[in-house]
């Protein structure tokens, strides 16, 4: 009945004011589930709830109200042991199941989750403060979709993922405030590919992971396949570094990513990083500004983004900045922030007061710098950890709020003049997660989408997600991918390979390979020092090997040489002793060449590689005989290595125009394109075995896919690489695409991996060097591919030219292009 007492507005009051009323969603099912478990949870290990004695407990609360939801365990290192053991045991059978059986399991899990979708959505909303509408309409259906989609990949693993096998036990560490979707991102591909898992949900939102595990058991998942540990963040390091863990999949902050990269360095597990970074939005003067304003207000209010939090950096073309901001302010003023369980809320609660304080610090700092702050306070409830939708304008690109990611509903606005400037500004950031591009100009949209260094681009839209298209970033946002076929590669290894177990050693990272000139000196008078041979009383012209970068032979900055010995121990030649400065120069040269090379038509890149092969063939006998003289290989074997090298060149030339990307089958009305783009500059440290073949096997895929490389050839056998320089020069390889720096492999690798502007490091050397490369890559979170000292049979196509090389040489970007103009009649 209307008009009741007690401050409730009458129908007449509402009729007059036309305000929105409350629209609460009943939390009954979630509360009932919590009650069923006595509001007290243990770990979920080996298919059962498990409460080891003597553990402390933590309170899991509703961040919006502070209400206690349940207590969970604070796991201890021994618990990690038990969970990893359970997962290891389960792996035996799970990984051997026929693909179809695993597909059934995932399918059943999808069904079970779908049946309990409402419970899952309510629980996540209660636990995280995320609005129920968002969880119910977007997150939960996406979780279900991920399971169905990956049930498909489980079924097709045999045919689609030939040559790959599961990794083993995957530890998933999620520290984002809203863990449900990221958990599904990790669980689905890992299980589909035959791995078993140990999940560590974020300390502040542990419940959805526990529910997922229970639903898994209910769906008939074998015990131990999906285990959940709860605890503080400190547990993550121990879990990641546990020798029984074969891979670590992370969704967390950049800092978490760095520390786990260091914690796992040299231990042999694979690391798949899905880190922070705010979303980028670029609005051009050719955009539908109203469409953009709606999309951006959505990005501000919702925590559903790719990133751990809402908010974005908005670049707007100066000519339309005023018109866009007018529309944005209107929209932000319409947003409703409040009770997360209200169906009509755009924004919910933050994780806690600390997060609120952190946001406020950024905003106030910007205000103090003279920025203009617009905040939609009207929407906000009086109490609780809420923050109003905020727009910051008039800031400089040096401001902290521009450079750093704000985990809150804040849109920071920077103007730009031209499309070129927009791309430069957009890429001029350490992170690279996702971007939206707003323009009705198709050529512009596609060019900008190609040029942005991010993992996802939405054209005229925001926050499109689907299981069929991988999410992930570039640079400091981590390079892991979850979803789509590209995401499967995070959870498999080549079939021929066993898990490297180097056993991390105590390495002094500060001094490892830090000093230049550590190799034996090449002083004249040293025994075996060669002098130019006489031939018919004429000395042969001295041949001095130099460095090769920027398309020219260069003397080393250190002006020193190293001897190269033949099998008998005699000096065969001298090569330049490259130093950090030479690496610096070579990287610079590579960067000059990389953009142009990456943009070359695939056909042209193929032609260049074929030309290299052609010229190598011309010099087959000579190269083979020099190889024999260097390594002592019999002529037949040396010739075979040259021939295999030729075949590798052909293989990667063939791949130039066949693996650039595909169309992803997402529900988008339009097109979702996966581009496999070059990484940029790749550092490559070559192994000693098969020095010519391994050099070509590593160089060719990188170059074929549009990267520029800085190669450190085998220190023991550097000559084949250097001999090829002349061939590169005569085969139209543009200067700077291939750069060769000889010298101490570990010293030069150290410089390469510590170079902030090298995008990936491939290291085929010692276990210690591998460990160092992994550890030091935490600096800019570059991609690494290391051998851990394990040799590979380069002459075997599976090992020397597998799909693995293609995966390592590219990064995926998904571009979402909605379509639609046809209308009514």
């Amino acid at each position, binding site marked *: 009945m*209307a008009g009741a007492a007690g401050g409730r507005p009458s*129908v007449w009051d509402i*009729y007059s004011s036309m305000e929105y009323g409350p*629209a609460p969603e009943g939390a009954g099912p979630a509360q009932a589930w919590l009650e069923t478990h006595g509001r007290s949870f243990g770990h979920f290990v080996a298919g059962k709830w498990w409460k080891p004695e003597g553990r402390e407990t933590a309170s899991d609360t509703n961040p919006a109200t502070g209400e206690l939801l349940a207590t969970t365990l604070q796991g201890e290192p021994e618990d990690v042991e038990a969970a990893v053991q359970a997962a290891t045991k389960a792996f035996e059978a799970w990984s051997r199941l026929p693909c179809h059986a695993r597909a059934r399991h995932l399918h059943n899990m999808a069904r079970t989750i779908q049946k309990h979708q409402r419970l899952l959505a309510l629980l996540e909303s209660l636990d995280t403060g995320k609005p129920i*509408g968002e969880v119910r309409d977007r997150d939960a259906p996406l979780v279900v979709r991920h399971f169905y989609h990956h049930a498909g990949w489980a079924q097709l693993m045999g045919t689609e993922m030939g040559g790959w096998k599961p990794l083993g036990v995957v530890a998933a560490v999620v520290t984002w405030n809203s863990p449900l979707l990221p958990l599904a991102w990790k669980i689905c591909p890992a299980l589909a590919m035959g791995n078993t898992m140990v999940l560590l949900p974020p300390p502040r939102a542990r419940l959805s992971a526990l529910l997922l595990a229970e639903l898994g058991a209910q769906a008939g998942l074998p015990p131990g396949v999906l285990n959940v540990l709860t605890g503080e963040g400190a547990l993550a390091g121990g879990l990641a570094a546990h020798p029984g863990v074969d891979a670590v999949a992370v969704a967390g902050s950049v800092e978490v990513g760095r520390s786990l990269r260091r914690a796992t360095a040299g231990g042999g597990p694979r690391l798949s990083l899905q880190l922070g970074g705010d979303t980028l939005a670029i609005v051009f003067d050719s955009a539908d500004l109203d*469409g953009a304003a709606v999309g951006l207000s959505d990005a501000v209010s919702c925590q559903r983004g790719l990133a751990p939090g809402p908010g974005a950096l908005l670049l707007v073309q100066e000519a339309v900045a005023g018109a866009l901001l007018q529309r944005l302010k209107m929209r932000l003023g319409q947003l409703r922030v409040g009770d997360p369980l209200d169906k*009509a809320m755009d924004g919910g609660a933050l994780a806690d007061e600390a997060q609120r304080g952190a946001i406020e610090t950024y905003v106030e700092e910007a205000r103090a710098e003279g920025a203009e702050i617009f905040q939609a306070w009207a929407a906000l409830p009086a109490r609780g950890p809420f923050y109003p939708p905020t727009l910051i304008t008039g800031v400089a690109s040096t401001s902290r709020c521009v450079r750093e990611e704000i985990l809150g509903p804040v849109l920071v606005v920077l103007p730009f003049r031209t499309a070129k400037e927009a791309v430069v500004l957009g890429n001029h950031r350490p992170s690279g997660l996702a971007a939206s591009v707003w323009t009705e100009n198709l050529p512009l949209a596609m060019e900008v989408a190609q040029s942005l260094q991010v993992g996802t681009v939405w054209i005229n839209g925001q926050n499109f997600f689907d299981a069929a298209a991988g999410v992930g970033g570039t640079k400091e946002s981590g390079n892991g991918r979850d979803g789509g076929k590209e995401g499967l590669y995070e959870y498999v290894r080549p079939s021929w390979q066993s898990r490297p177990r180097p056993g991390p050693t105590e390495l002094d990272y500060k001094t490892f390979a830090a000093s230049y000139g550590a190799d034996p000196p090449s002083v004249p008078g040293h025994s075996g020092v060669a002098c130019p041979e006489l031939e018919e009383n004429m000395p042969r012209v001295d041949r001095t090997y130099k460095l090769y970068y920027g398309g020219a032979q260069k003397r080393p900055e250190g002006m020193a040489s190293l001897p190269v010995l033949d099998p008998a121990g005699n000096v065969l030649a001298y090569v330049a002793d490259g130093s950090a400065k030479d690496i610096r120069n070579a990287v610079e040269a590579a960067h000059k060449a990389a953009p142009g090379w990456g943009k070359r038509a695939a056909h042209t890149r193929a032609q260049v590689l074929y030309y290299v092969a052609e010229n190598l063939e011309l010099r087959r006998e000579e190269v083979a005989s020099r190889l024999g003289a260097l390594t002592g290989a019999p002529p037949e074997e040396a010739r075979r290595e040259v021939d295999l090298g030729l075949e590798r060149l052909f293989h990667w030339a063939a791949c130039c125009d066949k693996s650039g990307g595909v169309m992803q089958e997402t529900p988008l009305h339009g097109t979702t394109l996966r581009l496999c783009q070059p990484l940029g500059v790749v550092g490559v440290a070559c192994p000693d075995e098969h020095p010519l073949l391994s050099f070509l096997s590593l160089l060719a895929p990188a170059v074929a896919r549009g990267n520029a490389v800085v190669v450190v050839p085998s220190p023991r056998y550097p000559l084949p690489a250097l001999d090829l320089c002349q061939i590169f020069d005569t085969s139209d390889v543009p200067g700077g695409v291939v750069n060769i720096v000889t010298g101490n492999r570990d010293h030069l690798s150290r410089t390469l991996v510590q170079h902030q502007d090298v995008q990936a490091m491939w290291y085929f050397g010692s276990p210690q060097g591998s460990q160092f490369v992994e550890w030091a890559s935490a600096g800019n979170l570059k991609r690494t591919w290391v051998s851990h000292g394990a040799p590979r049979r380069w002459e075997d196509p599976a090992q020397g030219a597998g799909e693995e090389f293609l995966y390592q040489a590219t990064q995926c970007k998904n571009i979402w292009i909605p379509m639609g103009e046809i209308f*009514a009649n």
Partner: protein
Amino acid sequence: MSARNPGTELDLGSISRVQVNQPAVIRHAEQIQSRRTVKKDWQAAWLLRAVTCIDLTTLSGDDTPSNIHRLCYKAKHPIREDLLRAMNMHDKGITTAAVCVYPARVADAVKALKAAGCNIPVASVATGFPAAQTPLKTKLEEIRIAVEDGAREIDIVINRTLVLTGQWEGLYEEIHQFRQACGDAHMKTILGTGELGSLTNVYKASMVAMMAGADFIKTSTGKEAVNATLPVGIVMVRAVRDFYWKTGNKVGFKPAGGIRSAKDALTWLILMKEELGDEWLKPDLFRLGASTLLADIERQIYHHVTGRYAAYHDLPMA
């Protein structure tokens, strides 16, 4: 009705570059429907407000004085008195905003409303409704006759030929003449959006109509294959907002055609609140063109008050 829109000079420069992104509009439409809701008393109050915005309409070949008479009485008593009383809303003057008929039935409607003793305006469609394929001269004459017969609102329908062939000046000129022919009667301009080819054309036609002096812009005649859809509404109310930002003149909006359920009515109110603000939630700036909508709203109100679902015969028909 609010102050008249005096219109402006035709300014094609401001609209020539506008491009409406259809997928973005469709997403926005979905969002509006999923992100906002009103429940319980709020729903009842909002539905009553919707009633006061209805142009209760009959536009049929078989309209006669008797069904026009019935329509007019329903306009005056849109919700059963006892239901309103239960919500304490019986004395708040809840009637529909207008009744809407063909020009030949205006006199019948005026007479019936006078007999019912109420001041609800009569709106008449005109200008060769619905196809607008009649000569300009007869269109103008049609308006004048309807006004003479007592119509206080004229729902003119634009010439789609001019839009589809890009003759924006011609369109402006025609609507301007309609406006003059209307005299003191308020002019609603029906765009026939289902026949305009693109949302960009919908936006441009909206702007030209407002520049030419439309007091309302209206989606459809109800006779096109596609009528009042939410995406079309979004584009039109954005045009209303842009015109207001540019000129300070408030133009009303009327979705019409295919609005049948109480839920539809709430969605349109939510759209107006979100896009234009509370001021556009009143009959002087918002109308719902509908014939069967009222019956569904009344049933929802019945359910709200009694907790039972009504049979159609429980409520008086229009």
